[in-house]
């Protein structure tokens, strides 16, 4: 079955949106509870952040052989997301992913094909970010650590942060105000530069 549409052959259906090689891209925004994920997505997005649910399936504890005992548990995870039109073809989606560490093992599908991730950190509650940092590091997903500028977190030395959070060498640390579009854009630029440097 040749299911692939070929414009040159004059396929049966023509796209209504003409002659655009549309290409989606995605960046994940991860971090603990209340760290500013939705705020950051909203600051960057051209649409109000939307919410969607993804059902994630995982094997029940103690089940080794899927084919014999197909017992599964399904968890519904809500994600909010926003959209940034980059040019006439590229559309960037930002997905704010809940930070509960027990969900991280289910992110493999979501992370596939991503440009990278922004790990948002509230320096007053750093325990919440280790799972995300470990996850992206282990999967080889480019990421930046973004320190959200909550009151009282100013002036902490980046080297101390790097050590405290075990941020891998070469992984950028940036400072953001998640409410500020320009500040969040700057963080994305650092992320994409980092992803480019790693893809060289």
């Amino acid at each position: 079955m040749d299911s692939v549409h070929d414009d040159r052959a004059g396929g049966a259906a023509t796209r209504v949106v003409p002659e655009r090689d549309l290409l989606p891209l995605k960046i994940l925004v991860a971090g603990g509870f209340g760290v500013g994920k939705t705020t950051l997505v909203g600051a960057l997005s051209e649409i109000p952040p939307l919410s969607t649910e993804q059902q994630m399936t995982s094997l029940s504890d103690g089940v080794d052989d899927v084919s014999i005992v197909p017992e599964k548990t399904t968890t519904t995870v809500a994600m909010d997301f926003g959209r940034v039109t980059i040019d006439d073809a590229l559309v960037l989606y930002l997905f704010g992913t809940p930070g509960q560490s027990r969900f991280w093992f289910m992110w493999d599908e979501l992370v596939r094909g991503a440009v990278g991730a922004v790990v948002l950190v509230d320096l007053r509650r750093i325990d919440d970010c280790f799972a995300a940092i470990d996850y992206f590091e282990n999967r080889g997903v480019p990421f930046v650590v973004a320190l959200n500028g909550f009151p009282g977190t100013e002036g902490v030395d980046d080297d101390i942060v790097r050590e405290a959070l075990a941020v891998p060498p070469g992984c950028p640390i940036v400072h953001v105000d998640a409410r500020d579009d320009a500040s969040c854009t700057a963080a994305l630029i650092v992320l994409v530069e980092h992803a480019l440097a790693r893809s060289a």
Partner: protein
Amino acid sequence: MTVDRRQRPQTDGGRVVPNYAFTAGRTRSAAGTDMPIEALVTATELGVAAAATLSPESRAIVEASREPQSLAEIGALLGVPIGVARVLVSDLAAEDHLAIHLPLVGTDGRPRRELLERLLDGLRAR
């Protein structure tokens, strides 16, 4: 169904044409999970012409997709989980009512370098 032709199987061994292309549009079990949440859909002329004859959900998807919509946006629009949106979109694509635009990734599973460069240019221009 209509899939962006850049998504032909690649010689680098990566299978880019999603499973659902081979399941008569029905996503069951693992089939269809290759249509990622950011996949874009656009209505075809056929889809727009047929809209009035479609179910309310399908019609809503086709109408919204006169402008490109991601699977995530379709899910949010209908208030259904991504998996449900994926089934509806797959069925519409199988009927050539929708075109699907998948991400373009290299052998390493990451977006191609030239896309990252375009993304960077676009972000810097903001």
